[in-house]
């Protein structure tokens, strides 16, 4: 009998189907897992260490690079390529003792000179966090395995920064290489498998032999799959295609759970309004503290949390998270929902007929959220007009185009980091560069750290809430899901765990 095409098709299908049934199974429990597949909600910006981003991209870099220091899941500083570290008395000189015998994957040796160059290149590079090293005036290789950093002022967050992108160590061969953005050479636990990698889609890593810290090499192979589309990511989860990922949206948590994933929650961002023009430079009303307080009173935080993020969060009026020294639980409900009080405050401030704010509206966030908030504020006499912006959004935002706007900012593990991110006059998110003497005085104390620094940070938090520099809605839970073969420990203040905190379940 001559096989018909239909017959052939049936045979092919029959041959394929059994494959599909077990292709993505999690393997048997006794063996070491072959591969870890991580779903990534963001793409890698660049492999060039000097320009590297962090946050959601940290996992990419942690696979290939070592950092001078590491921070554990609770935020504690641990040795990395530097085994010891110490400040002098003035807290402006940091000495780092480096690990010996470490080589990059291209064979180049790692030493103090290389470390110095990496640090300076990052400080002067194009990373969005380049300013994290702005306090470093000088970096010097004292000997082959000792580096000394000189600061212009104490920086209580520097050690943490050195465990992030500022501490990434790349081979000097990549420094001026044209392909540095796409071809990383680090000393880290894995190397990028360029053959199997599809830029902006799938990054494949294989474990390096003779790595100095085999304990963090938990998988022979790691694939990081970037999902630009939230629905596609969710489908990948539902289809059992990833071992671990952080979900785009809390609305997907239930789906992941019903697909057999474990859901790990931890507060990462605070979501709310940044009342940026607190100096009243562009919008006079926002310069009045009573107006800013009125905005805070106009928010029904519980309702917003339920409506926008399905209850995956905690209502709050402060921008510091519970893991931060500056946190004060009482401040969470400093501004109860009270439209009448809001109207009163507006009237006191001289706006009996209410005010109108223009806020940017982008497609990055659902239009429904914008309208929900606008609708809520309108009840207290605060009208919000939408201005539609496209790709210039961030630039315009940071350039001070809007006196108030909605955003979600990271809750940094250290108060100083929060200060550097959104409070300091030269920080990115203090877009009108507002300088407040009280804030600066407190910052000086925070800079020096210790007990007094911690106390100062709490005072700062109280002051910012009272002055209503922000109108936070709630702390948003970051949602990491893991399948049955994987476990993960959330890292304080970050969306994703450290790479080595994602572990196989035996």
């Amino acid at each position, binding site marked *: 009998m001559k096989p018909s095409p239909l017959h052939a098709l049936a045979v092919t299908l029959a041959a394929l189907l059994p494959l599909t049934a077990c292709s993505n199974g999690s393997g048997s429990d006794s063996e070491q897992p072959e591969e870890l597949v991580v779903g990534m909600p963001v793409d890698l910006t660049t492999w060039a260490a000097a320009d590297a981003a962090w946050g959601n991209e940290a996992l990419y870099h942690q696979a290939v690079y070592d950092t001078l220091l590491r921070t554990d899941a609770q935020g504690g500083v641990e040795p990395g390529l530097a085994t010891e570290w110490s400040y002098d008395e003035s807290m402006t000189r940091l000495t780092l003792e480096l690990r010996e015998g470490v080589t990059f994957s291209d064979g180049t040796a790692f030493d103090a000179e290389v470390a110095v160059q990496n640090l300076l290149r990052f400080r002067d590079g194009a990373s969005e966090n380049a300013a994290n090293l702005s306090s470093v005036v000088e970096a010097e290789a004292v000997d082959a395995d000792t580096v000394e950093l000189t600061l212009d002022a104490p920086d209580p967050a520097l050690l943490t920064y050195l465990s992030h992108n500022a501490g990434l160590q790349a081979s000097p061969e990549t420094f001026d290489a044209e392909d540095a953005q796409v071809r990383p050479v680090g000393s880290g636990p894995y190397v990028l498998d360029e053959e199997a990698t599809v830029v902006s889609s799938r990054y494949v890593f294989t474990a390096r032999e003779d790595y100095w810290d085999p304990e963090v090499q938990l998988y022979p192979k790691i694939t990081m799959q970037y999902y630009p589309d939230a629905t596609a990511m969710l489908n990948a989860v539902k289809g059992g295609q990833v071992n671990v990922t952080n979900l785009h949206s809390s609305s997907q948590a239930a789906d992941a759970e019903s697909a057999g994933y474990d859901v790990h929650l931890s507060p990462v961002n605070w979501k709310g309004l940044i009342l940026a023009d607190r100096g009243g430079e562009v919008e006079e009303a926002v310069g009045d503290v009573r107006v800013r307080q009125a905005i805070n009173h106009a928010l029904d935080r519980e309702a*917003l949390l339920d*409506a926008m993020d399905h209850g995956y969060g905690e209502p709050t009026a402060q921008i510091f998270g519970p893991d931060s020294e500056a946190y004060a639980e009482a401040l969470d409900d400093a501004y109860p929902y009270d439209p009448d009080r809001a109207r009163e405050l507006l009237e006191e401030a001289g706006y009996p007929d209410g005010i109108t704010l223009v806020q940017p509206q982008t497609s990055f966030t659902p239009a*429904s959220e914008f309208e929900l908030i606008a*609708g809520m504020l309108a009840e207290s006499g605060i009208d919000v007009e939408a201005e539609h912006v496209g790709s210039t959004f961030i630039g315009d935002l940071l350039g001070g185009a809007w006196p108030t706007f909605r955003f979600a900012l990271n809750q940094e593990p250290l108060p100083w980091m929060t200060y550097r991110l959104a409070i300091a006059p030269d920080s990115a998110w203090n877009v009108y560069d507002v300088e407040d003497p009280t804030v600066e005085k407190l910052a000086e104390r925070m800079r020096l750290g210790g007990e007094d620094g911690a106390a100062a940070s709490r005072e700062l938090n109280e002051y910012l809430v009272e002055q209503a520099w922000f109108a936070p809605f709630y702390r948003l839970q970051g949602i990491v899901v893991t399948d049955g073969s994987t476990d993960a420990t959330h890292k304080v203040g970050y969306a994703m765990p450290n790479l080595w905190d994602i572990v196989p379940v035996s």
Partner: protein
Amino acid sequence: MSTPASSPGLVPRLLRHPLGSPALVFVVLAVAVAVAGRWLAPHDPTATSVALVMAPPSAEHWLGGDAAGRDVLSRLVVATTYSLAGGMVVAALAALSGVTGGLAAGYFGGWVDTAGAWLTALVMSAPAMVILLAARTAFGPSLWLSMAVFGALISPVYYRVVYNAVRAVCGEPYVDAARTSGLSTPRIIARHVLLAVRAPVILVSSGVVAAGIGMMAALDFLGLGSPSTPTWGQMLSEGFYDMARNPLLVLWPSLALGLTMVALVLLGNALRDELEGTSAPAPDGRRAPWRPRSEEPPRVIEHGDADERPVLLSVRDLAVAYPRGGGWTTVVHRSDLTVRRGQVHGLVGESGSGKSQTAFAVLGLLGQGGRAVAGSIVFGGQELTGLDEARMNALRGRRIAYVPQEPMSNLDPAFTVGAQFTDPLRVVLGRSAKEARRTALDLLARVGIPDPERVYRSYPHQLSGGMAQRVLIAAAVAAGPDLLIADEPTTALDVTVQAEVLDLLRELIDELDMSVLLVTHSFGVVADICDHVSVMSDGTVVESGPTRSVLAGPRHPYTRELLAAIPRGNPRPPLEGARP
């Protein structure tokens, strides 16, 4: 292009169309909702309420609330306005640029034409999605802008239709006449050209509107819509986002989008049916049975006939009908014919008298749906009506052959003369490729083709009409048939060629000893070649007899009329030197 313009009866006709009427009603309804949307919506479609977030349907909010606590029904209603308007913008812009361009290029030709063709190619090879994205990045997330750009990108659809229509119209004599009579260009375009273009433009539009709505939904799905304007696509994409929590949020916009698109597409199909007359006939099951005409046609007038040769073909009381609407159109009411062996039988009548249909009925090759609904056709003792395909195929090409009227259209343009000549020889007569080729070349030479080898290799369009007709005759007689049916074999040819072809036919008849049923409108041809003649009028054979007798003493008024219409004279002698 003979598209009937949309007559005032178009809407009633659409309403009678089985799928057109519900589609039209739905589209009208959707448009009504779109126009009145702002007043119809029970709530403010943008008003948010925390209490209404993901609320189930209730008396106050019939379809419940969405993720932002907005009334779903109101959003659906207002989204209708934006979605349809988006589709309209696409169609309007596409039509504006496509029709204008098509008109200009088609009417003026020359460099305008060249430029138009090039621009069309440019637009069509542009990756639409990338252009849309770039435009959005460049000019901001405006729904209208995106739709306008998409309209421009899709405008070649109109351009092509209009261009073709205009080219066809500009070839018509009345446009030339208008031009020479000094009418201005705009007036010609307005009066003649636009009229011709109207139908195809209407037709294309419903598809384009649907495409526009679909594209808008796709852009919204990719998150590239304008966040402030509620559209079905946006509701859909928001719904997908929250599908696990509330699948109904996907259902409503899907229904609205799907039904509207289906309605638009069906409306387009119905429009095409009505405008181009391609309405499908009712299936046989629902068709009324055929009935003969109520008044009995008069019996055929038979002249006395001394011919005693055996009867080869006998057609009795034949009626041929085609399905139309829910009933039948009868093209042959009663046809009676007797063709004897060796006889050349002329079947004469005006065009539309049913003579060709009678011939096709004998061949068993009536047009789509056509059927011998009554009477009998007996060939060589075998009844042909109701004969199955295989038996009929056994007769065709072997015992009954056919020479058509229009030589050029009867050769397949995609195959060489040799290929289409030899294929039946091999398939039907079972000759080998080599034998078939030799037979074909011999026959081509026999019918007077000077260079058979060259013609054998040629494509039909490389031959002259006379040459093509010789090819067809040669192919027809290849199997040595008993009956040759020749349907106006000379009508489409030049006068001198006509004579040559007739002479060729006469020779072949003598040589091969076959009977011929010669369908013609010309008594001249009949007098020239036929020994017997039947006259057909209005689907009925009215008079029949030996040629000499009928010519000398026509009895039926219609035969007399026909004869009076041709100049009298003796049959001409064979042309000298006509034969090679």
